[in-house]
């Protein structure tokens, strides 16, 4: 079993100028690892990370967009997979931390911990779908997944926690949105 922090540390080794859209626990941990202007946390409502990412991918086709989602969040907007499958942005990578719980809300279980997210994504029309349960496999694959023609979907089966310190007021601060815009405008 993997944990989210080690997966994100592996991912961080490959991230350069990509836009990273992250939400809830994934955002908390990602921010603890990499605080950078091209992080996008302004999702606003639970479940919308991938929708923001889709818009960004269409708006900035020259940049790769990586969405760090959660299983509870994705379940709140499962139709997004159908929309992404239909639009099929080539620069879109969707990584879902699958720990079977609404971890940011107290670790309460999702309705079905065993849901096959990669299977759902594939059925929704996304061709490149993957499931990872071992960190060595994820480490070996992530570099090529980030370069592959999107959309790419990966279910990262992880255990709960440990959670980094949460500071939503900092994460959602308007200054971060302004820095994100400035970085894009500067051609970062």
């Amino acid at each position, binding site marked *: 079993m993997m944990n989210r922090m080690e997966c994100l540390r592996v991912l961080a080794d490959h991230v350069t100028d990509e836009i990273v859209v992250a939400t809830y626990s994934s955002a908390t941990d990602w921010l603890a690892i990499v605080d950078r202007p091209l992080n996008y946390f*302004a*999702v*606003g*409502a639970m*479940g*919308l*990370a*991938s*929708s*923001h*990412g*889709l*818009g*960004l*991918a*269409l*708006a*900035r086709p020259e940049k790769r967009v990586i969405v760090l989602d959660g299983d509870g969040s994705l379940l709140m*907007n499962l*139709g*997004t997979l*159908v*929309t992404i499958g*239909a*639009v099929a942005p080539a620069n879109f990578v969707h990584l879902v931390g699958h720990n079977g719980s609404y971890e940011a809300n107290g670790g309460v279980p999702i309705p079905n911990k065993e849901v096959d997210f990669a299977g759902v994504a594939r059925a929704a029309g996304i061709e490149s779908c993957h499931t990872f349960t071992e960190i060595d496999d994820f480490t070996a694959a992530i570099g090529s997944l980030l370069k592959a023609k999107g959309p790419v979907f990966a279910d990262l089966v992880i255990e709960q926690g440990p959670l980094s310190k949460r500071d939503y007021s900092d994460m959602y601060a308007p200054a971060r*949105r302004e820095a*994100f*815009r400035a970085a*894009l405008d500067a051609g970062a």
Partner: protein
Amino acid sequence: MEDKVQDPVAGVAARLSGGAIISAIKDAGVGYVLSVPDLHTSYGLLMPIADDPDLKLIRVCKEDECLGIAAGLSYGDKRAVVLIQYTGFLYALNSIRAVAAEHRKPICLMVGLLGKPPGVAPRDAKRVGLRAVEPILDIMGIPHQLIETDADVPRIASAIIDAYEFGHPTALLIGRRPVAP
């Protein structure tokens, strides 16, 4: 599907042209339309938009997807209109609250008021959902306009342009079924 009645104010036959609305959103620089189908606007707007090579239509599964997609598009200076029914507006309220009202993203809602008789103010409609739309927008600080006849159409482009230039949401309430081009 034409909704053509005697306008109680003007005393003349009133109509709302879908083609004029589509021209107006193009004049405002809109390149994307994000939509869940609405019987009120399907024939007059959505179907012609789907066939329009100047507009990219993204069909979504639920209305709140539109809020995220439109916000993301705005970071590439891509303008979008969210074309939904008032029931979908009600469904997506939490996303509208977050992305449009709190983050002040330039979200341009075009909301079909299915079931509202032309000439009747939304606040006076029989359906509770229709009556709720404008008060909710007011509470959220989202400016809104009723688009009910061709005379209202010139206000569409300016509302969208203002939203994107000054960074705020706006709502255009389609009060009568647009006539297909």
